[in-house]
């Protein structure tokens, strides 16, 4: 409370102080018969010099920041694509720094140099076609270079991956990431968001998961049967509004149930295998140095953005839409630690599209291993596929599982 009072008092005193200053100034101006619109040559020269001084300060500070934070402060790129991008970025940065210094210099230099001097009239110079042509054509040429180089890089970065690229999926939701490796067949299993259940968070599509979802819709804790019983039970009376809520819920579930039934009819059971061998990985994303990755992105609730600052890769994950990105890590975590001289450094996957309150915490550590280490890790992981997770008891085969859930 005291502090609040102090804040208020400071504000009030500040206003009073400015008011007093202005009054003093006003009185002195009246005494000197000074007009506000007539700028004295003293003021003119002072401001001209200050402008030039400001330019020096600005340039100096810019150079200092560049020096203090090592060009851009981001460190070396850790992917092939990143290296290509950094080369282009440095070229563009040099071009714009030259323009920045040159034009700002002219601006502040002219402001200082051509300040009004008594008896020196301004030079009447309304236009000059040659000059105007010059500064239309020269920027156009520079831009042509920038555009051509930029589009070449862009087509490399967004083009298709090679067939041997490893496929992974990044699944995003408020506020974490889950990775899915394509497994032995290097093909990601299909998915449908309606299949999301506690034991199938990524909503993978197999004959069994469709059946469990159908079963859950029908017999689950707030499934169709229970809701129907609730409405038809003559012993309980609901208010109209509650009844409407229940009915809306019921009709939505019935609709979903119909969709799931259709899905079951159209489902090709041969595709199940693609999903069963997928590997679901939380917390840390492991990647292999020198391996190209084709990354599919998916969002459960709102738009997220997969942002790998060190691989210079980014793409939004959009609900209801498939997006992709690709990159090839070319430095292991250990190598980068040595390069950065920081034992605790790690690569990171961050969310870079506003997605709610804890947006700033949504991240996943990324570890790049060399080939042998990665293979070792992957071999261990292949013992814990989606199938192993889905059927924790090893004895039950998919066919039997279907029977039990179908009841």
């Amino acid at each position: 409370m005291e502090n609040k009072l102090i804040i208020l008092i400071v504000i009030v005193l500040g206003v009073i102080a400015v008011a007093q200053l202005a009054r003093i100034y006003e009185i002195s101006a009246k005494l000197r018969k000074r007009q506000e619109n007539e700028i004295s040559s003293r003021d003119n020269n002072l401001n001209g010099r200050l402008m030039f001084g400001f330019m020096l300060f600005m340039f100096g500070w810019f150079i200092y920041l560049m020096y203090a934070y090592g060009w851009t402060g981001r460190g070396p790129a850790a992917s092939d694509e990143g290296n290509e991008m950094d080369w282009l970025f440095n070229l563009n940065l040099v071009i714009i720094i030259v323009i920045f210094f040159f034009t700002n210099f002219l601006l502040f230099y002219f402001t200082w140099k051509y300040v009004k001097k008594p008896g020196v009239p301004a030079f009447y110079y309304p236009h000059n076609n040659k000059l105007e042509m010059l500064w239309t054509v020269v920027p156009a040429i520079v831009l042509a270079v920038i555009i051509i180089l930029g589009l070449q890089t862009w087509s490399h970065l967004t083009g298709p991956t090679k067939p041997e690229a490893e496929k992974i999926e990044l699944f995003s939701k408020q506020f974490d990431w889950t990775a899915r490796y394509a497994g032995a067949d290097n093909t990601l299993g299909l998915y449908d968001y309606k299949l999301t259940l506690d034991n199938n968070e990524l909503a993978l599509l197999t004959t069994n998961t469709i059946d469990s979802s159908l079963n859950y819709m029908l017999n689950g804790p707030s499934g169709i049967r229970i809701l129907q019983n609730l409405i038809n039970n003559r012993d309980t009376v609901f208010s109209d509004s509650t009844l409407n809520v229940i009915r809306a819920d019921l009709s939505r579930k019935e609709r979903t149930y119909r969709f799931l039934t259709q899905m079951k009819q159209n489902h090709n059971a041969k595709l199940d295998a693609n999903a069963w061998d997928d590997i679901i990985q939380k917390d840390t994303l492991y990647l292999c140095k020198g391996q190209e990755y084709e990354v599919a992105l998916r969002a459960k609730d709102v738009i997220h953005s997969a942002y790998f600052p060190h691989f210079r890769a980014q793409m939004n994950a959009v609900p209801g839409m498939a997006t992709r990105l690709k990159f090839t890590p070319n430095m292991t975590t250990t190598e980068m630690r040595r390069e950065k001289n920081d034992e605790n450094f790690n690569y990171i996957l961050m969310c870079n599209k506003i997605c709610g309150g804890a947006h700033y915490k949504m991240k996943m550590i990324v570890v790049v291993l060399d080939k042998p280490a990665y293979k070792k890790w992957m071999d261990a992981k292949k013992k814990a596929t989606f199938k192993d997770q889905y059927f924790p008891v090893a004895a039950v085969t998919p066919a039997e599982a279907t029977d039990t859930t179908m009841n």
Partner: protein
Amino acid sequence: MASHDAQAHGHHDEHHHHEEHFISKYIFSQDHKMIGKQFLMTAVFMGLVAMMLSIMFRIQLAWPGESSDFLSFFLGEKWAPNGVLKEDMYLGLVTIHGTIMVFFLLTGGLSGTFSNILIPLQLGARDMASGFLNMLSYWFFALSSLLMIVSLFVESGPAMAGWTVYPPLSALPQAVSGSGFGMTLWLVSMAIFIASSLLGSLNYIVTIINLRTKGMKMTRMPLTIWAFFVTAVLGVLSFPVLLSAALLLIMDRLMGTSFYLSDIIVGGEMLTNHGGSPILYQHLFWFLGHPEVYIVLLPALGLSSEIIATNSRKPIFGYKAMIGSILAIGFLSFIVWGHHMFVTGMNPFLGSVFVFTTLLIAIPSAVKVFNYLTTLWKGSLVLTPAMLFAIGLVSTFITGGVTGIILADSALDIMLHDTYFVVAHFHIVMGMSAVFGMFGGIYHWFPKMFGKMLNTRLGYAHFWITLVGAYGVFFPMHFVGLAGAPRRYYDYSAYGEFDNNSLNLMVDLNEIITVFAIIAALGQLIFLFNFFYSIFRGPKSPQNPWSSTTLEWTTPVEHIHGNWPGELPTVHRWPYDYSVPGEESDFITQVTPLKEGEQSH
């Protein structure tokens, strides 16, 4: 003479005779000068609110998690328990700051104020084409401003999805609390704002086309008017698209449609919406959003063209090229919106088309910059506060513009998209340039608006604090972004878990930025004081304080209905006859007839 006037302008004489009501003069005024001032006052208030919001979240960014009396004073226990800002409210502050600054200060405030005041005065018209629509435009603006302010006080918080309010985040109250009633108010406020903007813009266009005085050919209009004209056309063509985007979002929120929603599970609830596309919203939004940048920027460039020519005592260099660049920028601004969407999953080929069109805008922009530079060259510069702000605008336009070249390059945007580099870029090129243009305009035309002079010394103090503050805030921000810091992050503590060097960089620079922001904000108090003090106590303005050539300085200092007593002035020459060789005076007003043998420019 008197009888002739009475016949020709009987209507106006009538007005001179009876005293106007307080309500019809100050509140429901249909006079363009009063409406312009109403826009200005409202915008200054809104700008102040938005600036305060920015200081609040800057405090959080500089000293994350530390208790601040300032925050608890303004936000209370609910949004800043123990003086520490809540995550949700951080997003709310960021969102409303952006919305108010872009729409209410820099669109309503800049174009609303100066189009209203200058279009009739510089064209030699008695008023806008429709005084009533003009009044309606202001009152819609006032109502939308009020709703936006009210949304800050809603229990579930203001809109929190960023000023672009991308769905699904903005459509789902389960995803963030601000997407409840706060978001509804945001959408309603914006819908009303768009109506206001359309009424205003149509009025400006009609006035410029139809109500120019005798001799005021299109090629004799000051560049301010050209800028306002193109701005109004951009507004008319693009704002309706934002309205449609907002309406579809309202329908998704309230009526269960699926324009933007598909396959969503949020808060444990499986939504049945299917087939919509969040990308559709982004296309619609940015189809307005990019022209909006120029709706904000062009008036500022127009104002500064006028200020720079007047105070250099030189004609603006390349008048026709300046008009050409305004038109080129206006046209191109409609075919570049996709550069906001390079990493949204839009087809990469479409992306490359937008790279091409976007980088083309650099050409007319470069032409404008070099023309300004040549105007200054060998001038006789009078460094009034307005002139300093106009020169500051050219500097920020360059500094912010060049980083646009990097962001427009889709291949480089991948790594900089949604980082602080973008925030720095658009704050300098759009925010600071437009604000500098607006301040320049206020210092230059204050005598015309209020018949009083602003205090020059306070003006200088205000300029220097603002210039140093602006660069002090947004220069280091580039480096925060280059180091990779994403925008709209409540704090950067996450970096502590994987990269301490970057964390240190961000914490250091964020502190510097906040200190400069606070200094710059305090500097605005000088302006506020000067502004209100001078309205009431400032020295009386002379007829033509800046020795300017344009028509507005031929009207009486005391405002009258209809602007000119007696006949409207006739225009004989272009607006930039400064320092014409062989002339005694260093300016020749537009109403001075050509001398024998003199060629019209």
